[in-house]
């Protein structure tokens, strides 16, 4: 490691030569320069100094390296305690490497300062989460996320995965199609003898051979009946199959969607997801059951016809088939245009649905602010956009079909010309020409419908792509490949140096907290200080950007998500009730709960009495958004819901903010029972709610600034004191809230 040859490709000569005994320890490839232009450069750390291509700084005891990021740009700043020495910038993709660099720097500097050799670097650990990396793997299995593997263009073929269970039926359908198509090709063949051996001889004075005619005509009838029966069977079977494939696809997509993280839902609009799962699976379904079937038939028909034509007369057949390559070329030309067009239409369509999905749940706000006209206008605009995109596409599309039609007509004309010429030279009989004309009318009809499949295929492919977009999306809180079995939880949670970022905004910056089993923690701090975010991380709705959270010594990322969440009871500020009865809503997390359990949970949450006031008691229906209940009532139902699963860890995120003081007081007294035997993390805006907390954790702008109980924190007269004083002052100013003020006094006492 003495030379610079351990540097990455292309950087070996980027640094000045090292001194004797100097060892290269770490380096960071920067991709931005001082003026924030994209330009790469290198900064390296040795056991003596930090150096770049042109400058170097010794590792003095006062040297300090520190890292900040803002708007997607990370920055490392080096100072000597008084003065800024240097500043390096990079895009956040390099953040893990930069943090590694910073850690290595601190280790070196501390060892220089203390004179002790630097602690041996811990076994390779992930630069992001600091978990040890298994020896046989290169990247951290927890953090390695495939950021870009685009789905293949042959998206439709991927539907095979869903078709596979129906292989047998599909094969039967195919064989039936083959037979049915063959049967439809019999009649034109029979017109040949009918012409040449019956009608033309009759014109030349021969009497009609009635037995022959009877045979030929019954052949025609037989073929038609046969084709009808086979056609019916295959349409039925294949429709059955495609309906099932469609249903499987829809279910699979929905199941997958449910497993995706909150991050995914945060970035998607409801309308768009509704459109994907509803409309597009249906479109794929129709494509499979109708168009794909027709297409297969067409192909079969065309090949078989071609074969028959060639056996009758190769020259005439050749002429007949001339337009085929031209049409093929046309199809190819138009296909790309259409596909992107249809993708665009789908997106616009999702936009239209999104307007609905945004407005309908917010209808009270819309009406309250009298914005109906504007919402209507928004819808009209989305529709207009839809029209524009469609119009553009239709321009191409409308030209395409008639062109194919024209080519067909020309083809028939050519066959007439060539056929007449051949008859005139006695090369073929009239019967052959008749048969040809009968065949090619079918043949071109097929070509025409085949050209139509271009549009439907493209539509289905676009739909399939949007479905597979969901199916291919890897949850950003993935279940580990080999999940560690979760030991029985005692309820302790260890949060170590947790950093978290939403997009490029750093929200949590180095949280350390050790929560004991059975402890009640009160999280307080200004709104926006990251309390809910921390709780989201503890629930593993998101994964930490750096650091780790452990329960019973196991990192959250190495256990199966659902396994872990079973032990968490969560009550949010805005309770969500599903459409159904009150009992069903309470039992949501434990559908097999007995009635006695439901009632007990409701009692504990002080919801029992108001539930009994409902017309059907526990069997009363509550609406989609629980319209018929008040905020406090809904909240108590959601508390009961959390209690029913008897969680080891109970999380209350401003759970009592929406209830009136009296109700809160009731819940408060219930809380006594609730927190017994479980770890509780409670976030509350009203500090009085937290008086039973063992420890209060005060957060400020993504950091923990104070920990202690109420009295300790009051004595410190700092963050908590100020929050508390601000509240009691407000309460004094609001005599109407005397009840609350009374409670405050109780706390102080």
């Amino acid at each position, binding site marked *: 490691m003495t030379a610079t040859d351990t540097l990455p490709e292309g950087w070996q000569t980027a640094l000045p030569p090292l001194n004797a005994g100097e060892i290269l320890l770490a380096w960071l490839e920067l991709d931005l320069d001082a003026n924030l232009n*994209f330009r790469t450069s290198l900064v390296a750390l040795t056991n003596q100094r930090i150096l770049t291509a042109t400058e170097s700084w010794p590792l003095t005891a006062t040297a300090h390296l520190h890292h900040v990021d803002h708007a997607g740009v990370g920055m490392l700043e080096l100072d000597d305690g008084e003065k800024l020495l240097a500043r390096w910038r990079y895009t956040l993709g390099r953040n893990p490497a930069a943090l590694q660099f910073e850690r290595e720097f601190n280790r070196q500097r501390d060892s220089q300062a203390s004179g002790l050799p630097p602690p041996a670097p811990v076994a390779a650990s992930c630069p992001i989460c600091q978990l040890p990396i298994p020896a046989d793997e290169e990247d951290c299995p927890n953090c390695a996320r495939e*950021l*870009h593997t685009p789905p293949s263009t042959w998206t439709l073929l991927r539907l095979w995965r869903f078709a596979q269970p129906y292989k047998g039926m599909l094969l039967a359908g195919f064989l039936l199609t083959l037979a049915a198509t063959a049967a439809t090709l019999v009649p034109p063949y029979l017109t040949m003898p009918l012409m040449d051996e019956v009608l033309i001889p009759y014109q030349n004075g021969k009497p009609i051979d009635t037995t022959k005619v009877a045979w030929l005509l019954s052949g025609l009838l037989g073929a038609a009946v046969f084709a009808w029966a086979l056609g019916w069977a295959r349409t039925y079977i294949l429709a059955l199959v495609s309906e099932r494939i469609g249903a499987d696809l829809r279910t699979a997509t929905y199941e997958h969607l449910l497993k995706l993280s909150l991050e995914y839902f945060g970035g998607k609009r409801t309308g768009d997801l509704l459109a994907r799962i509803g409309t597009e699976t249906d479109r794929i379904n129709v494509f499979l059951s109708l168009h794909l079937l027709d297409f297969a038939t067409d192909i079969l028909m065309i090949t078989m016809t071609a074969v028959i034509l060639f056996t009758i007369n190769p020259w005439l057949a050749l002429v007949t088939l001339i337009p085929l390559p031209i049409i093929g070329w046309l199809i190819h030309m138009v296909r790309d245009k259409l596909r992107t067009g249809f993708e665009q239409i789908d997106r616009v369509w999702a936009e239209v649905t999104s307007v609905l999905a945004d407005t309908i749940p917010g209808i009270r706000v819309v009406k309250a602010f009298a914005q109906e006209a504007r919402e209507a206008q928004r819808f009209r605009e989305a529709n207009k956009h839809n029209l524009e995109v469609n119009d553009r596409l239709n321009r191409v599309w409308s030209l395409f079909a008639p062109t194919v039609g024209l080519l067909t007509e020309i083809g028939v004309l050519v066959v007439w010309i060539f056929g007449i010429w051949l008859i005139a030279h006695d090369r073929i009989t009239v019967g052959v020409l008749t048969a040809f004309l009968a065949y090619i009318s079918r043949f071109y009809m097929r070509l025409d419908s085949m050209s139509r499949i271009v549009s439907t295929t493209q539509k289905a492919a676009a739909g399939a792509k949007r479905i597979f977009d969901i199916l291919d999306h890897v949850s950003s809180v993935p279940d580990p490949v080999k999940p560690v079995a979760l030991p029985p939880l005692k309820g302790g949670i260890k949060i170590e140096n947790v950093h978290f970022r939403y997009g490029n905004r750093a929200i949590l910056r180095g949280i350390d907290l050790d929560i004991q089993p059975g402890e009640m923690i009160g999280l307080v701090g200004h709104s926006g200080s990251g309390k809910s975010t921390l709780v989201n991380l503890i629930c593993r709705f998101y994964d930490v950007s750096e650091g780790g959270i452990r329960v019973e010594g196991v990192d959250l990322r190495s256990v199966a998500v659902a396994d872990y969440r079973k032990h968490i009871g969560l009550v949010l500020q805005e309770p969500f009730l599903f459409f159904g009865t009150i009992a069903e809503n309470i039992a949501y997390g434990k559908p097999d709960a007995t009635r006695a359990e439901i009632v007990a949970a409701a009692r504990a949450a002080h919801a029992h009495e108001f539930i009994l006031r409902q017309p059907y008691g526990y069997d009363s229906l509550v609406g989609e958004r629980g319209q018929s209940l008040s905020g406090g009532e809904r909240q108590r139902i959601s508390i009961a819901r959390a209690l029913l699963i008897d969680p080891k860890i109970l999380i209350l995120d401003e759970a009592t903010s929406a209830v009136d003081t009296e109700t809160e007081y009731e819940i408060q007294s219930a809380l006594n029972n609730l927190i017994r035997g479980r770890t509780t993390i409670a976030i509350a805006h009203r500090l009085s709610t937290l008086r039973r907390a063992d420890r209060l954790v005060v957060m400020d*702008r993504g950091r923990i600034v104070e920990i202690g109980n109420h009295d300790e924190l009051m004595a410190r007269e700092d963050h908590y004191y100020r929050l508390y004083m601000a509240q009691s002052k407000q309460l004094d100013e609001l005599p109407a809230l005397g009840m609350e003020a009374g409670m405050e006094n109780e706390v102080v006492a």
Partner: protein
Amino acid sequence: MSRAPITGSFSLTRNLMGQLVFVGADGTAHEGVTPVRAFALTAPDAGISLMSSESKELQWIDSLDSLPENERHLITEALAQHEFMPIIRRILSVSSFATPSTWQVETDRGATALILKSEDDIRRLKSPGGLLIADGNGLHFMIRDRRDLDAHSQRILKRFL
């Protein structure tokens, strides 16, 4: 709670640590002040606020033009250091038309690659033809007016809109 904008006189200096130091009407000095634009996209120059390191507003500035030369210079400089929204001039190539897709682009800050995780990361701006593209690593790229791009870039872009 809305407070009246703080618009009194103030002074700015830069200390040795490279931080901005703000001294307001009351005479107290605040280190580590950052200027932020209130309407970063729609009216970048119309309102600028000076925030303390505790994220409290120290000063509201309606327009930079009204400031003395020194303050204006320091603020513009700090904004330039702080802001990073490369403007895409050309889209050279994309790895695929399905997302996630890696784009090779030419920006006003040089050539680079960005990863588009989903079409939803392209946001239409109010200004006609304006687009904001959030890449997988949290950077934001801007396209001022897509109709001004060259034909090749426009063709690529259209597939994602």
